[in-house]
């Protein structure tokens, strides 16, 4: 059955608010990372160095997404899995399109490679670290002890278990050239510098508004 106009937009906004809420509400500060902090020997903390400094540098690019215009085709999932495993198997993809079929909304959920990454903090073995060339937060499978602390710490719940190996996996930005952004037909996922990306999405979201202004001018001209 149909959904009321107002309830639809409210639900969509709820969705967005809920998604970003954990970061704003200081969820990171209460995550298990604090507990681990005192107990991990320093030698295991190689991932910590440069943890917060690198993504602040301008030239690093990040993935930005826009759920409002996502068409839910999952091309990104298909190409992600193919790029990493050479297999047509989106269940192994490192990002997800969460589909809410009954309200027709699709939400791309992807790793934000957080500036102050809670998964790096949470990892007791130092298996998660930041790639110095791309700025991506990546997992070294050899060092991972499968404790899944990172999954609990992730504010987006985007660290997943691979259905084939059962191991913890996460986005690695395809070594600086992410397939998801390349194939997204609607530019819902873009890979841009942190000062450019938000503006590109802002422009796309407001294009219709800009066009309607011109339409209004034209109709006023016709009327007079």
């Amino acid at each position: 059955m149909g959904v009321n106009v107002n309830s639809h937009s409210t639900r969509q906004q709820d969705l967005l608010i809920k998604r970003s809420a954990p970061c704003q509400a200081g969820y990171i500060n209460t995550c298990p990372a604090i507990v681990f902090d005192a107990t991990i020997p320093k030698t295991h903390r190689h991932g910590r160095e440069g943890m917060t400094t690198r993504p602040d540098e301008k030239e690093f690019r990040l993935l930005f997404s826009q759920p409002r215009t996502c068409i839910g085709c999952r091309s990104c999932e298909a190409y992600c899995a193919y790029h990493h495993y050479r297999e047509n198997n989106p269940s192994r993809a490192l990002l997800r399109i969460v589909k809410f079929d009954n309200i027709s909304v699709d939400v791309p959920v992807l790793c934000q490679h957080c500036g102050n990454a809670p998964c790096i903090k949470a990892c007791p073995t130092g298996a998660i670290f930041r790639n110095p060339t791309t700025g991506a937060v990546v997992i070294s499978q050899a060092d991972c002890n499968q404790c899944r602390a990172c999954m609990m710490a992730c504010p987006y719940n985007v660290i997943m278990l691979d259905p084939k190996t059962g191991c913890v996996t996460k986005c690695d930005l395809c070594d600086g050239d992410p397939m998801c952004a390349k194939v997204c037909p609607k530019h819902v996922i873009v890979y841009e510098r942190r000062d450019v990306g938000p503006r590109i999405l802002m422009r796309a979201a407001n294009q219709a508004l800009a066009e309607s202004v011109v339409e209004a001018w034209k109709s006023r001209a016709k009327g007079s």
Partner: protein
Amino acid sequence: MFGWSGRTLNVDLTSGKCLTQPTPDDLITHFLGGAGINAKILYDEVGPEIDPFDPGNRLIFGAGPLVGTLAPSSSRMTVTAKGPFTFAFCDSNSGGHFPAELKFAGYDHLIFRGKSPNPTYLWIDDDEVQLKDARHLWGKDVWQTEDIIREELGDPDVKIASIGPPGENLVRYAVIINDHARAAGWGGMGSVMGSKNLKAVAVRGTKGVQVAGQERFEKACLKAREMIIKSPKMKTIGIWGKPWLNWLRNEVQKSNPTKNYLLPRVPAEEFNKVGLDAFMDLVVKWKGCFNCPLDCGHVLLSKTGPYAGTMGEGFEYNQAIDGQMMAIYDLNFVLKWTVETNRLGIDCDGPAYATAWAMELYEKGMITNKETDGIDLTWGNQEAAFQMLDKICKRDSPFAHLLGEGIDLASRKFGKGSEKSAYHVKGGRLEIDPRTGWATALSHATSTRGADHLKGMPLSNAFGTWKNIPYEFTDDSKLDYKAEAVVFFESLNSVIDSIGLCKNDTWSQSAECPGLHEFAEMMTALTGRSYTANSLLEIGERIYNVERAYNSRCGLTRAHDTFQEKFFTEPIETKMRVVDKEKFENLKTEYYTIRGWDPATGHPTGKKLRELGLGTIADDLEKRGIIKD
């Protein structure tokens, strides 16, 4: 195995046994997969004496080799069975995410035999397959069924194909809905599923599809994807969707079924209510199927009027006609109609055409309020349309039961000359006016599953590209190349349905989109077997011959490839005015000759069948005395 998962799941509903078997290599070589293999299985297993609702009928799901892969728009499956309203060969195609998931779970085909003693649903979790009790789901609509099954299985992302009450009540045009709003819509496959007491199929797949030539395949797929994104389709279908065709047919081609064909097109004063602007006012966002760059689906929201607040995935060209067939010129109504039919699991067109037919009888005084249970079936009555839809789904009165039979059967049972205003070919209702053009008329008449534009109607200039000749498909009033073009498109569409791509963004509907050469490249890279454009087309021809041979066995002949008298006699504004009967018969003769079939009967000849490697079918038809050696 590469491309194909190489496995077929045989489900015997009578005994409850599920058996996974390898898909025979011989079938894969000769029929590719999907629709092709489905057709051959149907021919081998369901004889002409079996009723569509008999447990002896088969319900076959088929996903081709490219389904679930990187190939653009590669999530189409074909559901095949003996058709409940054509009483002959019938198949139906659906998109969404379900077909890809089926491949990920590791199955090319699902074959349902027999009839379950109790309502049941099939749960496929990769290698683990089981039939589960569905007594608590019986009577629930499609969306409730999806919700309950997901909750029961504890996974919100399980992909489900299910039927609603119309399928259970054997309404002959009930559909199978998957992914909330994608339907195997033509042919009444939902009622065949209902006749087997099968409520739903739920799938979760994590195995994936393996690739032979990995780098080459990725390159080929990216190239095909690029072609689609650059094609004009992205602007027309990608933004306006199919209702764009409503404008094209009404304003350019001047033929658009309206008021049960009493009017040649929507009157000018009403058209702004159902035109493109009215449609775009409803759009809130776009939707696409698995791995498809072309977002032809729309999410629509009714903002004013009695249906305000109705939201759902919305409609194509044919739903837009549904309203105008009942003389209802209101897109908000069409949206509500689409959402309701999706929810209930019934073909959006079936009840609309049946109600339109009843409205004509009501106007002529052939039926009264007594037969309709007090429903006022005057033209344009929106409330009556929904009341009728509800009754048809339940089939709870003699008249609603009659309408649930489909217009062909209903008009024959009702009699009194009502057959004259039931417009169909071989039981399949006519959704495009044959007076539009020659190729339109020929393809609708000869289609193997009743009047249908997706089997052989030329909807692009691909025939010209292929033959390297100037060919403009919109210029349909001239007779040159028409038979050849229809033959080409029938074979091409058989290939597309069999490898598992969508017709929207391939040669079938746009010459700028990927065609046979791209298919061959993708198939070769994916499967490691060698394919060329010509070899694919030959397989397409073979598949179409199987479908035609099946119909010949069911007693259909050249005489059935025709229309009601109206289209031969009553002129409309199109360039062609009417379908000239003599020219039409000549065109049919030309078509059968190019096909290598017998022009006198329309049956495939033994020579042609053997040439295509269909010796067993030729022997079978000869044994039954349908064709002579």
